[in-house]
């Protein structure tokens, strides 16, 4: 699985960093920072949860 984030869409809610802190962080403006775009298998479920919960729909997963 590959993760893409759209920093133009990101609104800095931080949902992704809350549920999947090993994959997502926030910069000083609160915008999403991708720590890895290819999570290992054990983190795929939380990556999916982060994408679903993102209120700005700024996270896309390519399976």
């Amino acid at each position, binding site marked *: 699985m590959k993760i893409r984030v759209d920093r*133009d*869409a990101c*609104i*800095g809610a*931080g949902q992704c960093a809350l549920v999947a802190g090993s994959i997502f962080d926030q910069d000083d403006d609160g915008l999403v920072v991708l720590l890895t775009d290819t999570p290992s298998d054990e983190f795929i479920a939380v990556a999916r949860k982060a994408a679903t919960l993102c209120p*700005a729909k700024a996270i896309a997963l390519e399976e």
Partner: protein
Amino acid sequence: MSSKGDCARRVEMISVEDPGLVIVGASLAGLTCAQSLRAEGYTKKITLIGAERHLPYNRPPLSKQVLAGKWQAAQTNIDSAEKFAELGLDFFIDEDAQELNIASKEVRTSKRTLAFEDLIIATGASVRRLPGTETMSRVHVLRTIDDALGLREALVGIKSAVVVGAGVLGSEVISALSEYGIHATVIDRMATPQLPLTGGHFASRVNDLFIEHGVITKYGVDIISVTEQETGITFDLSDGSKVSGEIAVVAIGCIPNVDFLANSGLDISNGVLCDSNGLAAPHIYAVGDVARWHNPVTGKSLRLENQTSAIEQGLAVGKFIATGESSPTTHPFFWSEIFGNKILMLGNLEADIPLTIVHGSPSDNRFVAATISNGVTTGIVGWNMPREFRQSRAMMEA
């Protein structure tokens, strides 16, 4: 004889085929519910019908990136048609629900009658219009992607506009007008601007932004009449004054889409009343802007018009139908950007409790503030401090 028996059995099998689940409303809430059902192992048929002629899209960017001209319409799409096919949905656009019969478990649409085992009501809400202005071409509203594109076009080359409603949507529109160099006048019958769920704590801060950017404010007034001329719109106000602009934008809220439920027997006073699992009646659920869920923590039933509630309710109902498990109650969340200030809000700030500053400082225009009642944090706002806001969310879980 045996072949006749087989034939009869086959017909019977078709006639009692499980009607599965029907989702009325191709909204984010409805679509999230479908995704959740599949993720939780629901294998029966899912039929999704939507009244708009578009694939489901994100509404929050309409008054932000789309109105500002930074995004094309397609960037608001939630998922591609292929993704819907992957979910195994029977998906129909341009079809709306017209009547629900709970006893026969059928919903009549503009095109047919659909039987269901479970029904999800996700019809959303429609924009509230100012009476008498419905046919005026210079009076705009902002709810759908078509509204947003129409308004963006109308902003080209104009110098002045009137905004009716100083809520969060009105404030975002005023902020966009300012970026286009358009002079704005705002009218509201309330005495101050209002951000939802913030208990009035940010009214003066938002008003200061209006004043700083040259917005003319008319608070505490009713609109007596509206007249459209060849070159503009004029409002006669209850204080005897008149305000005019080349166009007007009406942002006075939404009305839940419950007309088709009028004879259903459901409680539809201000949206479909649901329990904390989203159940309005056995096998009937509601999610998103149309739903008024009971919150067991606060004891109140509130209709929440925000995108995060739509997502969380969709997830919860999908899980409940597929597994029978309830999801924990979550806090409402919204965000806004007004004159470049990034505002994040979680929970519900109480009007009669003073703000506690958790991070930063209001005088620096960067802070996180909360209302804390008997040691319980009821709401948090982040003002230009998103990372600290996220860190402070733990206060709400305590």
